[in-house]
Every structure is written in C-alpha cells, then in structure tokens.
C-alpha cells in the first residue's frame, strides 16, 4: 500500500532506529526533528549548499535530497557519529588550528565531505581538494583555510608530515 506515512527501520550512528515518518520528510529533517541530531544543518534545501551532508551506506549524500522513507534498511551516519568515533578528530583539530571555520554552519558538511576525500588515501592536490569541496558553501572563511586544513591532514595521514 502506498501511504503518506510509513514505518522505517534503519541504523543511525550504529544504533537501531524504528520510526513512523511522513513520506514527504527529508532525511535531514528526520535526523534533526525526530532524532534530535541537530549537527546536520539545513541550508538551501535544494542541494546547492552542502550543509546537510551525511553518509548513507558509507557514501556522502545531500540530506535534503533524500527522503527519510528511502533510508529504510540503510546505515546512516551523521556528524555526531563521525565525531564520536574519533575518525575525524585530526580534521576537527586542523580546522580549529587554522581558523577553517567562523560561524560553523557549514562545518559538519565540510568535515564529512573532506573525510570522504581523505578516505580515498594519498595526498590530493589543492585543486582536487577544492573540486571535492565545491559543493559545500562557506560564507565566512573564503575557503583558503579550509583547503589548508584538509591538505595538512592528508599529509599527516600519508606520513609525509607530522
């Protein structure tokens, strides 16, 4: 039966979640409003700004361009999970040290996207870093500090610098 609200089961940051959600609810609104995971931000709501970036089944997606009902059976990870796991602790420190954030609104999406690039291994060029982050708007920093932070972490992870 098609319906306006459906039961979904998924895991969010490793924890099982069973909820009834409206079909029209986007993934990011579900995470924020139903699960109180407010680390993922809502910016443009049409896929341009990247503030809502989360991971679904290991791949980064726009939380505003997926419906919660599409995540039935999926494994969702938000910035809260990424942060708690310690997997991006070095990125977070580098952002802080280099002032790669001011208001912080874009930061969760920026970190998730940067981690996605760094997980591929090696040290990307600054051009590749810019290209990978091109879908994440930052209206404060002018991006240079963000690229610096991501590049520095890539070099350390690759053992090129300490």
């Amino acid at each position, binding site marked *: *039966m*098609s*319906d*306006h609200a*459906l039961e979904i089961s998924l895991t969010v940051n490793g924890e099982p979640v069973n909820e009834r959600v*409206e*079909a*029209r609810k*986007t993934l990011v*609104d579900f995470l924020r409003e139903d699960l109180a995971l407010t680390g993922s931000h809502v910016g443009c*709501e*049409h*896929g341009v700004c*990247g503030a809502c*970036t989360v991971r679904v089944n290991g*791949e*980064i*997606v*726009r939380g*505003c*361009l*997926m*419906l919660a*009902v*599409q995540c039935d059976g999926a494994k969702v990870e938000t910035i809260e999970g990424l942060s708690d796991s310690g997997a991006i602790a070095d990125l977070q420190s580098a952002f802080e040290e280099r002032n790669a954030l001011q208001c912080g609104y874009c930061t969760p999406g920026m970190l998730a*996207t940067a981690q*996605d*690039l760094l997980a591929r291994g090696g040290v990307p060029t600054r051009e590749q870093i*810019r*290209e*990978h982050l*091109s*879908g*994440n708007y930052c209206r404060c920093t002018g991006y240079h500090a963000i690229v610096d932070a991501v590049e520095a972490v890539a070099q350390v992870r690759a053992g090129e610098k300490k």
Partner: protein
Amino acid sequence: MKPALFAYKKVRSLPEAVTLLGEQADARLLAGGQSLIATLNMRLSAPSLLIDINGIAGLDGIVHKGGKVEIGALTRHAQAERSDMIAKHAPLISRAMPYIAHPAIRNRGTLGGSIAFADPAAELPACLLALDGEVDTTGPKGKQTIKAQDFFKGLFETALGPQEVLTAIRVPAATTATRVGFAELARRHGDYAMVGLAATARADGKGLTDVRLAYFGVGAKPVRAQESEAALAGGDVDGAVAALDLDPPDDIQASGATKRHLAGVLLRRVAKQLMEAR
C-alpha cells in the same frame, strides 16, 4: 520550504511502475531524486504519489555488447565515473562525469534521471546527442527505442510518454579512431553550465570526419552546430568558430551575446581535444 503532502510507494518491477503511473496521472517516478526532491522542497512540483523505482532489479548494469555500450537507467553518476568499461568504451561520458554537480550528488543522481529530466544546461543530454545515442523505454505499449535527436523535444520536454519509464541509454562503443571532446564554463565547479560543449569525431588520416558538436546551456534543449561541424571536419577551427549559428537567449547566468562568445571559446578548446591522439 518543505514538500507538499504526497504518498510514497516503492515498486519492485517495471510493470508495477507503469501500472501505477496509469492509475495516478500526476504521479512522478523517483530515481536519484537530485532534481525532483529539490523541486518538491520548493513546491515547484507537487505530485500526489512518488513511485520509487530504486528497488527494481536489473536497471543499473553497464554492458558492452555488439559495438554498443548500454547503461542502465539507475546507474549512479558516481558508478559511471568509476567504471573502467565506460572510461574505455564511452570516454565522452567518462570525461563529462566530473563536471556533473558534486560528489554527494553524483552518489545519488542517476544517468537515466538526467536524460529523462532533460535540463537544457545538463551535460548528459548533450553527450547522448553528440554520441548519436538512443534511449530505451518501457510503457503500456511495451518497449521502445528512441534516438537522442528525436528524444529531446524542448524545455524539460522529451518523447517520454506519461506512462513510460526510461530504462537504459545506449551509445556506440568507441573505436581506435574515435575522438571525443568536452568542455564547459560554470561559475562554480559542478554548477549547471553557462555554456557547455560535448563533441565526437572520427580520426581520418590527419583530419577528422563525422564531427558532432552538441552544445548545452544555449537553448531549450541540446543543439548541434552543424555548420561548424563541417568546417571543423575540414580542419578550419577559425571557420568553425565563425560558422557558429547559435542564438542563446539571455538567462540568469549570462547574456546571449556572452554565451555566443563563450561558445566560440569552448569550440577552440574542444577542437584541440578532438585533434589529440588517444
């Protein structure tokens, strides 16, 4: 904004999708959703039912057979970007892929969705036209194959009937003589192009034949610059630029005059790519 109320149904087969499309006239198919959900959020679109086709098996394969490459409609952009088969046998698509939106969007967006949506500034419709490709559809009257040049009708308008589902695209496989070129200009990497150009040709001695230039972002649908194709086949790049007979309307990105100028800039870049050996 938030989407208006709609019902959601995940289907498991094409006949199920076709039947539902027939039952509810304003139903929409949900594939990657990277354009559709944005329009729902902005309430530019308010269907009463979304038919999620992501659970239909067999719509996401990439197959090389009979001199053609067939790409299932549900193939994600990221999948195509990583595909060795596409890199080798459909290099134009491979070359266009990094220009399509951003990594998070390419992880969800589908090739079939891009073609069916037919955004006039999108890369893939122009690639399909340049490649002289075709699309497969399934509807109440069964299966159909439609050539790219007949498929794109106008602004977001295609030959796809209201009850039809696009199931695959097919392009000729590249040979050693195949040459491809791709370039676009956008304000931000990954944004829709101000102007873009997808091109194919065949190397013939030191020259080119069968040049096909498909521009996007210059009109209601991808358009070929046939006068320029002939000039380029004769090795005359200046002549090809002079022969550009595009008439792009002004839009939010640039004036028609600017776009005409940029079309010439892109033609020079792409001509260089076409003349390079593979």
